[in-house]
């Protein structure tokens, strides 16, 4: 495994400074509190040093210790433990099974002589339950067998608060709140000294190795387990972190977040609590003390004191990133979250994510890179700027300093490998496409869209067109030059259009259609241009290219006039006369346009209708000689002509009649006669010239549309008369007459018809007609009878009302008052309302409404 450099080992107290020439004196214990360093020795001395930290220009720290005082405790035993209680300005000294309180500065014992006797080991509660700031809680392993005692230590007195017995002899203790974490002879346990409840953790063998019990934070301890494991356990007896793997002969452990540091005979090892991996190994012989004091880690041999100086976290992370160990760097950074102020952390962490993203990117790990860029809120331009020429020339972007990566550009990153380059470009395409509509793009939309356009154009990507036809922020100048370079002229046109330069767009497209420049993006570009002009509100532009589109195809080209959007037609539309003038050269287009005016828009102008009819007529006539060959087409035009002649009332009938008659078009003349109400002439043509009896019938129906029944009857009778009139084709016409009568029985006045019919016709022949006529007659009779009955009954109702009103007499006396003026009647003349109210005649004329009831007709 590659190692991290998390700590450097520096000397703090040289051996000469400590014990001069006393060869056999050993360091037994150390304590560090702020700048105060205390050393307890085997010859019962306490030495006090002041530590001064200096940072060398290279960034590493050094320490110099200045000796303040040293003091002999007056025993012949070694000083076994030292603990500072800075709030009390006291140092707790364990020596010869007795804990004495000495002044932190003078090292003089407190005058009261307060001490704790019979202590084998002690632990300070760093998370005391007692809230008194001028008191520290101390747990001791008592010399009494299987006993733990809890003391409150004040400035100059001590007080025992609790004594608990343990199932086995305790060998080491740590404390947090009410919880004691104990190493017993065969196992570790958690003991709540308040409730006495204990919780086994796990067994170990005290005969084989020294136990380690180390509080590492709120409610969590680190223990030396079997097989050289550093086990984590909470006060609930649960492990929340995986164990770290130390050597079997580990002597001491310390914490310097996020690292667990362990000491054995030969090495100091550093494990991360975040991933349990061993990160660093420092050779260190004959060490026997390893402790951390408020984040400062101190190791000592029996002769010298050293400090493990942590490298700044950022430096560690940068080292990891520099060796491409992204995962570890991120874990370390994340783990540092709670040790760094929030704002500072966020800035730092974001930057690390970005750097990590570029590392992944350089290894073409795009998925990972994308996620890192996203979570690191990378300024997208950092990424774009790696690709040469993608950022618009106008962009104000400069890369962040210090740089997020070591690459000048993509060429350097891929070392010219075209395949890699293409992959990177594809990634950027998808990435930009994803972010362009998110808040990541805020403020840089131009840069992103322009870059995306360039990538698409270069890669001949379909999305180029989508980008340009939807909302985008592509910068015109940059994009135009790039599209031109890559011969994306159609797209360039779209770009011009998006930037309100339709004239330039159309000019470009027309050039493509004409073959002046080449771009095969759209095979139907001509139709596209027509469509574009159709929907363009720029009239000038439409006029400019009207001739061009019409020359290409009259039928399609004319759409620029005929298919214009509806809302535009309603306001400032093209003047039809201008269009007609323009279309003079294009007959087919002209017809289409007139049809559009007459049929689609329903313009009621005589010229258009007549003009269209004349054009139809011309075409009909033109095709007449070869009628047999182009039959279908002629009839189509002819049908249109007839339809127009029938439906329109606006054309000049006489003008057309003349031409139609000259041309010899009987059907059309019949229609025109019809328009002039010359029904006999029309029917005559239909019956005699064309012998088209169904047309004659249709004519009757057509002309009688919307007219009253007598008019209709008149028409049918006219036709019947023509059929029945004597002539050379009389028998044929007789059949037609019979059919007419039988089919349209109701259109005739039967009595009149019967008089007209020759007596020779059998009843059988006219059976349907007669039956129809009879039924009609009977029906009429019956409905009349019903109407009569209804009228009679209505009359009866009125009579009844009249009788009722007249029925009763009215007595006029002095007591009756006019309901309007409340005066008595003086004359025998009055007006009576239907509700019985009596009023003066003059009152009734002055007041038209009933005086006392809501409506005159209401009966009370």
């Amino acid at each position, binding site marked *: 495994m590659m190692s991290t450099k998390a700590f450097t080992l520096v000397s703090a107290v040289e051996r000469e400074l400590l014990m001069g020439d006393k060869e056999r004196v050993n360091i037994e214990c150390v304590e560090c509190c702020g700048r105060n360093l205390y050393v307890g020795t085997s010859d019962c001395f306490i030495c006090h040093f002041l530590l001064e930290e200096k940072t060398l220009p290279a960034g590493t720290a050094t320490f110099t210790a200045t000796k303040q005082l040293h003091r002999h405790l007056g025993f012949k035993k070694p000083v076994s433990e030292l603990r500072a209680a800075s709030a009390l300005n006291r140092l707790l000294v364990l020596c010869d099974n007795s804990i004495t309180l000495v002044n932190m500065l003078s090292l003089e014992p407190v005058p009261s002589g307060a001490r704790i006797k019979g202590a084998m080991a002690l632990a300070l509660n760093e998370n005391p339950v007692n809230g008194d700031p001028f008191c520290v809680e101390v747990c001791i392993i008592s010399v009494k067998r299987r006993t733990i005692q809890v003391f409150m230590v004040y400035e100059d007195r001590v007080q025992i608060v609790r004594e608990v017995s343990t199932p086995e002899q305790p060998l080491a203790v740590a404390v947090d709140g009410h919880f004691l974490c104990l190493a017993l002879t065969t196992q570790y346990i958690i003991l709540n000294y308040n409730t006495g409840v204990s919780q086994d953790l*796990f067994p170990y*063998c005290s005969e084989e190795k020294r136990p380690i019990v180390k509080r590492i934070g709120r409610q969590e301890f680190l223990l030396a*387990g079997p097989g050289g494991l550093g086990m984590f*356990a909470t006060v609930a007896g649960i492990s929340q972190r995986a164990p770290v793997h130390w050597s079997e002969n580990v002597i001491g452990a310390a914490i310097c977040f996020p690292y667990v540091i362990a000491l054995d005979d030969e090495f100091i090892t550093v494990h991360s609590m975040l991933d349990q991996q061993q990160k660093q190994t420092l050779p260190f012989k004959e060490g026997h003390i390893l402790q951390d004091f408020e984040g400062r880690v101190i190791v000592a041999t029996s002769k010298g004191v050293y400090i493990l100086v942590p490298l700044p976290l950022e430096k560690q992370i940068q080292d990891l990133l520099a060796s491409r160990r992204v995962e570890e760097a991120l874990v370390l950074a994340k783990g540092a979250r709670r040790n760094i102020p929030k704002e500072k952390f966020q800035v730092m962490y974001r930057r690390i994510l970005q750097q990590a993203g570029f590392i992944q990117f350089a290894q073409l790990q795009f998925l990972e890179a994308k996620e890192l860029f996203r979570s690191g809120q990378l300024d997208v331009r950092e990424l774009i700027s790696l690709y040469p020429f993608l950022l618009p020339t106008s962009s104000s972007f400069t890369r962040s300093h210090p740089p997020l990566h070591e690459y000048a550009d993509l060429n350097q990153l891929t070392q010219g490998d075209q395949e890699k380059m293409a992959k990177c470009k594809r990634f950027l395409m998808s990435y930009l496409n994803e972010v362009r509509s998110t808040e990541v793009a805020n403020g840089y939309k131009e840069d992103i869209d322009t870059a995306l356009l360039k990538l698409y154009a270069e890669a001949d990507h379909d999305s180029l067109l989508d980008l340009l036809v939807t909302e985008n922020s592509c910068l015109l100048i940059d994009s135009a030059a790039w599209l031109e370079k890559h011969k994306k002229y159609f797209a360039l046109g779209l770009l011009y259009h998006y930037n309100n330069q339709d004239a330039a767009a159309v000019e470009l497209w027309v050039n493509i259609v004409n073959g002046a420049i080449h771009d095969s993006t759209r095979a139907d570009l001509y139709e596209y241009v027509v469509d574009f002009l159709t929907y363009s509100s720029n009239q000038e532009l439409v006029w400019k290219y009207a001739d061009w589109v019409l020359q290409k195809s009259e039928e399609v080209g004319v759409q620029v006039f005929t298919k214009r959007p509806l809302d535009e037609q309603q306001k400032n539309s093209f003047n039809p006369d201008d269009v007609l003038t323009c279309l003079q050269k294009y007959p087919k287009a002209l017809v289409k346009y007139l049809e559009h005016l007459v049929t689609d828009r329903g313009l009621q102008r005589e010229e258009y209708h007549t003009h269209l009819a004349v054009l139809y007529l011309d075409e009909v006539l033109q095709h007449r000689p070869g009628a047999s060959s182009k039959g279908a087409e002629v009839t189509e035009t002819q049908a249109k002509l007839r339809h127009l002649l029938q439906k329109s009332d606006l054309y000049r009938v006489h003008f057309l009649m003349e031409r139609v008659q000259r041309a010899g078009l009987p059907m059309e003349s019949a229609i025109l006669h019809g328009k002039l109400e010359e029904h006999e002439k029309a029917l005559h043509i239909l019956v005699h010239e064309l012998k088209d009896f169904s047309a004659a019938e249709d004519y009757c129906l057509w002309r009688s549309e919307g007219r009253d029944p007598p008019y209709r009857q008149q028409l049918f009778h006219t036709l019947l008369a023509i059929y029945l009139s004597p002539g050379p084709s009389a028998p044929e016409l007789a059949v037609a007459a019979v059919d007419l009568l039988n089919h349209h029985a109701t259109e005739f006045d039967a009595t009149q018809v019967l008089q007209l019919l020759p007596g020779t016709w059998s009843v059988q022949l006219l059976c349907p007609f007669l039956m129809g006529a009879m039924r009609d007659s009977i029906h009429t009779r019956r409905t009349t009878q019903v109407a009569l009955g209804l009228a009679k009954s209505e009359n009866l109702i009125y009579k009844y009302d009249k009788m009722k009103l007249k029925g009763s007499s009215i007595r006029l006396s002095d007591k009756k008052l006019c309901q309007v003026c409340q005066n008595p009647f003086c004359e025998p003349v009055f007006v009576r309302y239907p509700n019985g109210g009596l009023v003066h005649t003059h009152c009734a004329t002055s007041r038209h409404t009933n005086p006392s009831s809501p409506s005159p007709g209401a009966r009370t």
Partner: protein
Amino acid sequence: MKKPDGKIVLLGDMNVGKTSLLQRYMERRFSDTVSTVGGAFYLKQWRSYNISIWDTAGREQFHGLGSMYCRGATAIILTYDVNHPQSLVELEDRFLSLTDTASTDCLFAIVGNKVDLRENGAAESQEKEGCSPGLAGAGCASPKVPKQVQLEDAVALYKKILKYKMLDEKDMPAAEQMCFETSAKSGHNVDLLFETLFDMVVPMILRQRAQGPPQTVDISNYKPPKRTKSGCCA
């Protein structure tokens, strides 16, 4: 560090493939693993819950840690090697007692791993077992009989466990549902195993949340591990 909402612990004799199973599921790969030291764990996000999965060391040396790992567990996966009947026996003899510290409604899954070796590797593993002096005496009277663990054996163990835990079979998932045969090498049934468990664990997490903090579970009526402890450092 995110606090996990539920805990799943893998238990089983050494070399049955606990680490491989977990690696196959979490990292979608299979590679030779070294013997696990102590334990390791993964956090798995399942829906909106964080579930920690503990891989334990099967070696006898670390046996004493088992109880602690199992404390408050929502589910325990007891793993054996289908080609080594003794590994199933060990589950009952050695590992079952470790689970006393688990949550009272803890789920149990019994997993026979290494099914990929069952057919072709049968003879070979047979031989090995025959040579191993430690296992020879245990229960293999005739080495000719194909000595492989069948699913029924696991089902029987599952029912035994419920009895041992004094749980009613009706309240617990059916044995068929909780006994798996897997191959970490091929990935056979591995996703099924973990995801079935996750789906079962989620409602338990909700129930535990409703009941209050899990720390209050069973410190008071806790005694049995005394038994296992004495066996270790005697």
